[in-house]
C-alpha cells in the first residue's frame, strides 16, 4: 500500500505553525476544489454516455436517501409527543409541536433512573479527558517510536501493533473483572484511563511523524543545544498538528460512542454516559411500561448525535484527506 493511503491528513495544513497569513475558509475551499478538479480525469475521456452519469448520480441519490432516512426520522419525531410518535405518519410533522417540552424533559429525572443532561456531561467529560489523553500519549509514544531507537523499541512497537488485534470484548470483560477486584467499579478513572491507551493512535502518530518531521531538523535543533522536551514541543509538535487532529477526532468519537465498557463498569445512573443511559431508557420504555420515555429517547438520541456531526463537518479536511484504517474494530 502506498504511503499516502495511511497518511493521516494531506498537504493543505502544511503550515500548522501559522507562520504565514492564515488562509480564509473560502479561499481554502476554493483551492481544494480546484486541486480536486485538476486531479480528476474529465469524464468525457472515458467515453461514457450522458445516461451513465445520470444513472450513477441517481444511485448515489438513493443511497444518500437510505443514509438520511433515520436522521430525518429522528429530527421530525423529536417534535412529537408520545402518542403522535406512534400514531402519525413517521416522516411528517404533527400537532402539537412538542419539541421544547421534550427538550425540557432532558433536564429532569423523569422516571427516577437518571437525568439526560447529567449523562451528557459525563459523556463530554469522558470523551474530552479520554480523547485528549489518548492523543497526547499517542503523540509522545508515536514520536518516541519514530525518532528514537532504544533497547527493545522494535519489540515494544510490535507489541503495540499486536494490541491492535486484541478485540474490545476480550479486553472489556477482563477490565470489569479487574475493577471489581480493585474496587474501581463506578470510578471515573476506570472509564478514562483505558480510553487513553490507543494502539491505533500510536501507530498513526508514528507513521505521521515518519512522513512529516524530518530527522535533519531534529538533529539541527540538537546541535543548537535545544533540550529534548523543547525539541518535541517547539519543533516536532507543530509539524504533527494534522496527524494530531486526526487522532484526536478518532479518539473522541471512540469514547463518545463507547457502550460496552461503561455498560459493564457503571452500575449507578449518575455515572452513565449517554449511550448507556439511552439504552436503559429504551429498555424501560418498552418493557417496564414507562412509555413516556419514548419521546425522551428520540430527542435524547438527536441531541447525542448533533455534537459529533457538527464536529465532523467542521473538521472535514482531517478525515477527507485520508481517514485511517484501524479504528473500525469496535
Amino acid at each position, binding site marked *: 500500500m502506498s504511503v499516502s493511503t495511511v497518511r493521516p491528513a494531506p498537504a493543505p495544513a502544511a503550515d500548522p505553525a501559522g507562520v504565514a497569513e492564515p488562509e480564509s475558509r473560502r479561499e481554502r475551499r476554493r483551492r481544494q476544489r480546484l486541486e480536486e478538479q485538476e486531479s480528476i480525469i474529465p469524464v468525457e475521456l472515458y467515453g461514457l454516455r450522458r445516461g451513465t452519469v445520470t444513472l450513477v448520480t441517481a444511485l*448515489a441519490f438513493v*443511497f444518500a436517501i437510505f443514509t438520511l432516512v433515520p*436522521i430525518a426520522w429522528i429530527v421530525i419525531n423529536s417534535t412529537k409527543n408520545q402518542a403522535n410518535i406512534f400514531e402519525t405518519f*413517521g416522516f411528517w410533522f404533527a400537532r402539537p409541536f412538542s419539541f421544547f417540552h421534550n427538550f425540557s424533559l432532558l433536564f429532569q429525572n423523569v422516571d427516577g433512573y437518571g437525568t439526560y443532561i447529567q449523562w451528557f456531561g459525563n459523556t463530554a467529560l469522558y470523551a474530552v479527558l479520554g480523547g485528549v489523553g489518548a492523543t497526547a500519549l499517542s503523540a509522545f509514544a508515536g514520536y*518516541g517510536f519514530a525518532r528514537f531507537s532504544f533497547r527493545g523499541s522494535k519489540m515494544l512497537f510490535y507489541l503495540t501493533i499486536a*494490541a491492535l488485534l486484541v478485540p474490545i*470484548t476480550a479486553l472489556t470483560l477482563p477490565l470489569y473483572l479487574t475493577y471489581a477486584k480493585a474496587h474501581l467499579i463506578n470510578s471515573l478513572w476506570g472509564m478514562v484511563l483505558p480510553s487513553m491507551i490507543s494502539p491505533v493512535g500510536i501507530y498513526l502518530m508514528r507513521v505521521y511523524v515518519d512522513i512529516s518531521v524530518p530527522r535533519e531538523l531534529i538533529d539541527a535543533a540538537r546541535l543548537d543545544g535545544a533540550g529534548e522536551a523543547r525539541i518535541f514541543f517547539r519543533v516536532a509538535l507543530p509539524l504533527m498538528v494534522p496527524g494530531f487532529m486526526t487522532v484526536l477526532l478518532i479518539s473522541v468519537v471512540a469514547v463518545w*460512542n463507547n457502550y460496552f465498557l461503561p455498560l459493564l463498569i457503571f452500575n449507578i445512573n449518575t455515572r452513565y454516559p*449517554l449511550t448507556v443511559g439511552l439504552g436503559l431508557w429504551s429498555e424501560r420504555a418498552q418493557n417496564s411500561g414507562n412509555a413516556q420515555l419514548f419521546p425522551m429517547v428520540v430527542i435524547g438520541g438527536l441531541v447525542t448525535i448533533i455534537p459529533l456531526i457538527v464536529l465532523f463537518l467542521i473538521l472535514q479536511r482531517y478525515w477527507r484527506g485520508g481517514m485511517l*484504517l484501524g479504528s473500525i474494530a469496535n
Partner: protein
Amino acid sequence: MVPFLVGFLLFMIVPLGYAVYTSLYTTRIIGGTVFSGASNYTQTLQSSEFWSGVVRVIIYACIQIPVMIVIAFFFACVFDLGVAKFGRTFRTIFFIPFAVPAVVGAVMWSFLLEPQFGPMVHLANAFGFSGTNFFSPSLILPSIIVIVIWEWTGYNMVILYTALKSVPRDVVEAAILDDTPLWRIIVRIKLPLVRPAIVMLVFLNTIGALQLFTEPLILSYFETGSVSVNYTPTLYIYNTAIAADQTNLAAAGAVILGLVIVVISTASLLFRRRRGELA
C-alpha cells in the same frame, strides 16, 4: 513513552492475565472459590448456546461484509472518477453515520422497523408485503445487517476512496489512450492496486463482526424475545457475567473469543506478509 507503557501494562496486560486466572477457578455457593483447571473451558466449548452464537456471527459476517464492501467500492470508484454529480456532497452525507453511536443508530432503526408502528412496516405493506415483521426470527438477522451497513459503509468508502486516489494518474491515462473500456480500467488496473486496502477492510470488519453486540442488544430491548440472550458470543459472555453472575465462566468465554480473533488476525497477517503486501 513511559506513561503509555504503564497504562498499557495496567489496562491491557494485567486485565488479560487476570481474566485467564479467573477463568481457571470456579465459585461454588458452598465451598467458595476453588481451582478447577480447564473445566470452565470445556463447559463453554460444550455449550450449544455459545456455538450457535459463533455460527450466527460467521453467517452474519459472510453476508454483511461482502455486501458492504461492494457498495463502498462502487461509490469510491464513482467519486474517484468524478462520474456522479455533487460528489463532494454525497461523500459527506455517506460519512455521517460514522459519527452516530451504534446505540443511537440501533435505536433509530428499531423505531423505523418496529412491527406495530414502524414506518418501514407501513412501507412494506404498501408495496404488497403485508404482514412483514422485521423483528421475526427470519428477518431479524437481515435487519441487523441493514443497520450495520448503514453505520459503516461510508467509513469503508472513504478509506477505499483514499486508496483509489493513490493510483497513478498516468497509468489510467495510458489505458484511456488505448481505448480500454472503463469497466476494464476499474477491474484490471484499479482493483488490483487497491487490493491491500480491501483486504485490510475485510479483516477489520471481520474482527468487528465477530464481536457483534450493541445492535442485537438494543433490538432485544424494543422487541423482547426477538434476539435471544445468547444471540452472539459477546452477548453470551455479557449475559453469563452480568445476568447469570458466573464471572469465571464468562472469563473463559472471553478468553476463547479473544483467542479465536487473535488466531484469525495472525493468520491473515502471515498470509499477507507471504504475499508481500506488508512492508
